[in-house]
């Protein structure tokens, strides 16, 4: 019996790898197990390599170890493309459908050829149910209950699929008699409450709805499209405005238009789309129009690797665009954060009348987790835009220089508050100005209004003992791997870890974290160490500062992180 178990599944596009992983994940979730399952896929639409790495856990969802405990392989050729993501360890128990190629693959000791396809063919006439056969086998190994009926997913097409393939499922279960691996059994979950299954992209969309988003405009792009698709379903029935735009300039332009009428408006994209939005983001900053932009980062530059994670859009999020246009940059590092921070992004965007860029990444966006669903029903304060009161009649100044530099904003349609705005430099009334003093004053206004955000301590998470003088700063999904590795290495008491969710403007709590250190390590997944340079541009870093920064395309492994971390702790 064990508390954690990682299962790898690899095959070709039609092999049902993701379906198998999802069914298993949901089945386990219905019993109360936590889990996390990243997806691996390539450029091919059909028949390409497809893999998942499902880590089940009795107590919480966390990133898996480097190697897998159980591996199911439907296709060796495709496995070769996924070897980096799903390396076999010497203790891995491997089940495979067909004989492996002569060279290139070292089978672990406990490797078993199981005729998944053959059994499926025998029972159902096609090989299509081979993944269900495998499901039966895995269910039994993990000692999961017989069916999904107890779960949250009872009514959907997954259970229908299972019902249709009952024979195959049972055949899979019966295979177990021949492979008794008692040590692979999972302990009962810490609590039996059903876990919700979702990925970061779904969490973003649900957070948007929760915070009252009424307008979404998007353009398809991997790995952000799920957000658009979920928003389409949720906003399509008169609940708001949704459009698939003709491009990303249109998407954010439509969102600004909606926002001017008072609707909470957003869009979601990844790098290339964010590039195209640059000019509009500057307009939103300059004309002080709230809008939330989610960037689910992938490998760059240019088209890069569309299906793989990188954290290389940070610079553009912070600095992108001409003319000194301030904006807020937030980064989620887990799925719960995707939900909570989307709400926070709207709160900040609406309150401060500024564009907010919420950074996610492919790993976070497309990895499904099974977690406690409490966060979905928790109370969140939801901010509204500050609107001018009755005292303004006839005197309303859209860009009034108030004490906190936030000017009450009328909605297009509000009676008595008509104003005209412009992307030109403008005075308090919104009228074009060519005057230096106005230019300086309005720059000040836009930058200074964001200063209070530095005090948002709740958007900076710190783990570990306060007294530690060695610390790590990491953001986004990489932070999960950092936390996990610190724990696995047992360094919790020597190292502390700071995960800023608010990145820009730079929060005070992050500054004091850095200030408390003798040795700092910055970990990030981009070649040029963007976070490190950003921190350095704003703070005095300890003279003993190191960075661990490399390209994306592969999640951090415990192995690679342990080098710099052990060094840090020494």
């Amino acid at each position, binding site marked *: 019996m064990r508390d954690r178990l990682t299962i790898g599944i690899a095959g070709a596009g039609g092999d049902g790898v993701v379906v198998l992983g999802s069914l298993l994940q949901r089945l386990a979730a219905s019993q109360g197990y936590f889990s996390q399952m990243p997806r691996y896929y390539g450029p091919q639409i059909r028949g390409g390599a497809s893999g998942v790495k499902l880590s089940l856990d009795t107590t919480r969802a966390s990133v898996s170890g480097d190697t897998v405990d159980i591996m199911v392989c439907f296709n060796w050729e495709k496995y070769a493309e996924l070897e980096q993501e799903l390396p076999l360890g010497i203790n891995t128990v491997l089940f495979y459908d067909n004989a492996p190629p002569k060279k290139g693959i070292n089978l672990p000791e406990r490797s078993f050829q199981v005729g998944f396809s053959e059994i499926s063919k025998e029972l159902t006439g096609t090989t299509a149910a081979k993944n269900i056969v495998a499901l039966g086998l895995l269910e039994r190994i993990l000692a999961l209950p017989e069916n999904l009926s107890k779960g949250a997913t009872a009514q959907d097409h997954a259970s229908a699929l299972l019902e249709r393939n009952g024979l195959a499922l049972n055949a899979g279960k019966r295979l177990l008699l021949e492979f008794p691996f008692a040590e692979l059994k999972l302990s009962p979950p810490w609590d039996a409450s059903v876990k919700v299954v979702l990925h970061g992209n779904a969490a973003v969309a649900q957070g948007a709805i929760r915070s009252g988003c009424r307008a979404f405009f998007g353009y398809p792009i991997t790995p952000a499209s799920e957000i658009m698709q979920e928003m389409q379903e949720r906003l399509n029935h008169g609940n708001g405005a949704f459009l698939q735009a003709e491009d990303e300039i249109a998407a954010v332009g439509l969102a600004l238009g909606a926002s001017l009428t008072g609707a909470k408006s957003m869009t979601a994209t990844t790098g290339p789309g964010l590039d195209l939005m640059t000019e509009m983001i500057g307009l939103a900053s300059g004309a002080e129009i709230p809008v939330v932009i989610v960037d689910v980062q992938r490998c760059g530059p240019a088209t890069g690797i569309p299906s793989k994670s990188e954290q290389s859009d940070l610079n553009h999020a912070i600095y992108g665009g001409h003319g000194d246009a301030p904006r807020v940059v937030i980064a989620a590092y887990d799925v719960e954060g995707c939900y909570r921070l989307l709400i926070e992004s709207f709160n900040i965007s609406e309150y401060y009348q500024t564009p907010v860029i919420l950074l996610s990444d492919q790993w976070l966006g497309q990895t499904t987790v099974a977690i406690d669903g409490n966060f979905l029903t928790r109370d969140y304060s939801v901010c509204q835009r500050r609107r001018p009161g009755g005292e303004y009649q006839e005197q309303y100044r859209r860009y009034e220089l108030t004490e906190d530099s936030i000017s009450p904003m009328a909605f*297009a349609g509000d009676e008595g508050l008509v104003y005209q705005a412009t*992307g030109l430099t403008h005075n308090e009334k919104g009228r*074009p100005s060519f005057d230096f003093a106005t230019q300086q004053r309005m720059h000040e206004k836009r930058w200074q209004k964001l200063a209070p955000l530095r005090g948002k301590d709740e958007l900076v998470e710190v783990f570990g003992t306060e007294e530690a003088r060695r610390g790590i700063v990491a953001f986004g999904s990489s932070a999960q791997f950092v936390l996990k590795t610190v724990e696995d290495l047992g360094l919790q008491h020597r190292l502390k870890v700071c995960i800023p969710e608010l990145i820009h403007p730079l929060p005070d709590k992050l500054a004091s974290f850095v200030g408390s250190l003798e040795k700092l390590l910055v970990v990030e997944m981009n070649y040029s160490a963007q976070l490190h340079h950003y921190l350095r541009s704003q703070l005095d870093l300890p003279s003993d500062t190191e960075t661990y920064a490399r390209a994306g395309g592969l999640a951090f492994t415990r192995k690679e992180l342990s080098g710099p971390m052990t060094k840090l702790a020494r």
Partner: protein
Amino acid sequence: MMKESSYRTGVTPVWCPGCGSFALLNALTGIVLPNLGTPGHQVFIVSGIGCSSRIPAYINAYGFNSLHGRAVLIAQGAKLANPDLTVVAIGGDGDFFSIGAGHLPHAVRRNVNITCIMVNNFVYALTKGQTSPTTPYLRRGEGPFLSLQFYPPVDPVLDMVSYSVSTGASFIAQGITADVPHLGWLIQEAIKHRGFSFINVLTPCVTFEPPQFFKTIREKASYLKEGEPVELPDSSREQPWLHDSGNITLALKLAQTPVLEKPHIGIIFRGKES
């Protein structure tokens, strides 16, 4: 020259004396808005960047002078989020048909109920006189208005009508700033049309185009009247037909008339409403 109107703000326009934009401003604040009776706070005027795009500041309605080429996006977004607003997008020929050209077919097919007014001065005026997509082009020696670049212009009205073929829904018209009452009437009709509407407003820039250009267009202008024969340019070998703005095929034929030869003023096409 300017009518007093409660729809005017106190801001003084930066336009050159004699610029057609004044006529548009007069049409909007002196005719359209008073006649429609829509209070300023229920109107949202979005513009791009260019000479005519300065107009929102002069109209006592919600207004936004946005980005070059993008007025039609902001306008659609606003209308979708607040359908009670009367939303008008105003811009230049550069705005709509150069940098913003990619947004138009999509705006047409979505048929969002906004009105686009293209102030077609046949030039990039604000940036001081470069060729625009509508700058007249004649082969060397053929006439007085030669674009610096040797491309024929795009034909905005033809394009807009052809975009409308699949929906059969939009409202496409051509106006002229030399006739403010008619222009006002056209805009009113466009706003009243429940669906996407587009008006190509002919108004050669008085600063960067030769003065005879405006004169020529004004003189050649031919008003379209429902049920009456359309006038065709002398060069045309078509048989004239009776104008029927409800007929998209006739509209397409009509839209093929080069604007310099026979500027048709009026409603080219008025599709079914939603």
